[in-house]
């Protein structure tokens, strides 16, 4: 089999799917790309058995055929080849020869029949949304996903579908983000949990624009299609915690602060916090917010005060500063509202302004104050 392809276009496409591949896998063929050539079309597939990604591009080819090519060495060589047409020649033994203006390179491929089969998209339900809407939903939730393999349901983002909206929820049991879009319409009420890795891959493979993407799902898999790029992944088979019951219906104390000022103050003060908790205590009274962190052993202390608008009784409440900083990143407005009730109950963070079609709600549990 022989085909000709642009080196830079091939590299660009492969970079979208290369992240699927794990190094040193138990099955060596999982370290390969599957190349499929059919009538001037090249399809390349990468898989880790859980997530499969494929791209398609135009090439020059007279024949059809398939081969597995080791991903790492191919990527390393493409990165160093100046933009030009490359000729791939594959013989019966799956030996791959690449010819460029600079020379010839050879690598042993593998029998494509051994490459794992993709899940089939049977019995799927589909809906569409813009690429930017999905990328935004991932960006606003993925950071709150848990790493705890002992609670698999929380190691992915919970997609809740409805006729009038799509809602994405993530939690690690200490904090929770709920991101809602009312400009997405799903055929029926439904839900599934998507693992972290495919979402991370989508985030970098999808453009942040108005391109339409199609999501299809069945009971085991999610399929995402954007133009000639496709991804499928296994869904997490577990029950997402009943998060609605932990959202406080009314936190009476409300503070509004400038987001960037609050975030910078947290960054500066938390340098001096106890690193096992990252604890920063917020003391709010009148129109003043005080931030305090300390590490008794090292005699570290950080204190700052800043202006805020506050409607409520004086309160001292402590949080993990890293949680607050990450959550503030997910608020796009200039100011944020922090709604509190008692020092041991969940705080709510909301942007003060949002697009009509979007809604973000973030919950964070406090730390018990030391002494």
């Amino acid at each position, binding site marked *: 089999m022989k085909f000709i392809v642009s080196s830079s276009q091939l590299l660009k496409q492969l970079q979208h799917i290369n992240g699927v591949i794990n190094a040193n*896998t138990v099955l060596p063929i999982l370290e390969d790309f599957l190349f499929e050539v059919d009538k001037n079309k090249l399809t390349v597939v990468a898989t880790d058995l859980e997530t499969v990604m494929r791209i398609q591009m135009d090439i020059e080819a007279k024949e059809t055929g398939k081969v597995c090519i080791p991903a790492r060495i191919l990527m390393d060589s493409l990165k160093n080849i100046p933009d030009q047409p490359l000729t791939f020649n594959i013989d019966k033994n799956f030996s791959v020869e690449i010819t460029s203006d600079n020379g010839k390179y050879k690598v042993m491929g593998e029998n494509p029949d051994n490459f794992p089969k993709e899940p089939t998209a049977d019995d799927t339900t589909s809906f569409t949304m813009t690429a930017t809407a999905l990328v935004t939903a991932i960006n606003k939730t993925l950071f709150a996903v848990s790493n705890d393999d002992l*609670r698999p349901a929380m190691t992915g983002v919970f997609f809740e579908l409805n006729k009038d909206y799509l809602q994405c929820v993530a939690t690690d049991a200490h904090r929770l983000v709920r991101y809602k879009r009312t400009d997405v319409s799903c055929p029926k009420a439904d839900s599934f949990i998507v693992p972290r890795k495919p979402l991370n891959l989508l985030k970098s493979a999808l453009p942040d624009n108005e391109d339409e993407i199609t999501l299809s799902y069945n009971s085991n898999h999610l399929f995402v299609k954007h133009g000639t790029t496709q991804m499928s992944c296994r869904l997490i088979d577990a029950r997402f*915690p009943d998060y609605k019951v932990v959202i406080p219906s009314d936190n009476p104390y409300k503070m509004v602060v400038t987001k960037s000022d609050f975030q910078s103050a947290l960054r500066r003060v938390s340098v001096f916090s106890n690193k096992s908790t990252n604890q920063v205590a917020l003391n709010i009274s009148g129109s003043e917010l005080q931030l305090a962190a300390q590490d008794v052993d090292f005699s570290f202390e950080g204190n700052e005060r800043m202006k805020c608008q506050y409607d409520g009784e004086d309160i001292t409440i402590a949080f993990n500063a890293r949680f607050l900083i990450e959550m503030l990143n997910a608020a796009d407005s200039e100011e944020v509202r922090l709604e509190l009730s008692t020092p041991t109950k969940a705080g709510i963070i909301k942007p003060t302004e949002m697009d009509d079609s979007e809604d973000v709600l973030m919950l964070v549990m406090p730390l018990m104050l030391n002494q």
Partner: protein
Amino acid sequence: MEETPKVLRKIIHIDMDAFYASVEQRDNPDLRGKPIAVGGSPQGRGGVVATASYEARKFGVRSAMPSKRAIQLCPAIIFVKPRFEAYKEVSRQVRAIFERYTDIIEPLSLDEAYLDVTIDKQGIGSAIDIATAIKGAIRNELGLTASAGISINKFIAKIASDMHKPDGITFIGPSRIERFVSDLPVEKFHGVGKVTAEKMKNLGLHTGGDIKKLSEQELRKHFGKAGSFYYKIVRGIDNRPVEPEQETKSIGAEDTFPYDLTKLEEMELALEKITETVCRRLDKHNLKGKTITVKIKYSDFKIITRSKSFSDCLNDHNSILAAARELLEKTEPEGAKIRLLGITISNFPSLLSKGNGKCAPGQLNLF
């Protein structure tokens, strides 16, 4: 939790005071307040003091001293036969106390351990308070005293625990470390024995400060590899982690053959049988590992091993056998005379990282 590596650690070194002697005095009121030595009696030949009570130490009696010498220094000394089972039991009780405060415990002996309390399991707030709580529990629950040293690494913590013995607590914070080490006599350095100390003194090196004047190259010239360790340590740098002992580090099986194997098919058949045994043992311990090692012994008794690590666990018969075959084939075994083959699985994902969803103390949960 992902933490930046620059985070200062909090390490406690706990050392039980005159451990064997204190247990004996606790269990036998007649011995309290008296100079005693646990160890071989002076009647027996070559009897040696294992531990002396503080009352005996006043007379100059020390560990590892011949018992005959001890009786010369302190004629009233009472010799007590060691009861190692009793000490082991107390040591287990002490460890149970440590476990309330941290999961990262590295025992050095029955009476000494390093604890990493950077993650403050109980949310006590400070390492000094944790050490105080541990000492209190040892006193109240076990009727014994311990000394604690607290710092940001093992080296300083260990020296600190020795500074205010018995029943002492010593904290050396980051700002005091460099000066502290500069003033430290070289024989106090962990790992510096009498011979090395002598050699250092002959070179005019009496304190940490003296060592600090030498370059790493010069130190390596005089002390070999240890020179680099001294170079770092006098600058207060000791990155050795507190290493909890792992229960099982590897699981394997091997087979010695009645005649040397020369054919690849025979070898592969042997690997298959060994794999079965390995899988059975892994199942029994409920373990899965990421690294496989194949051991080959030839007819001339030469032994080689070949290993490979994977990003995920080798979790079934087929994947272990495939990896073992691949490693064997790389040694070009056809025609070689092989006496023994073995397969070992190691690199078990640690239980500590499994619990990474466990969060900081005091962090309240939604669910």
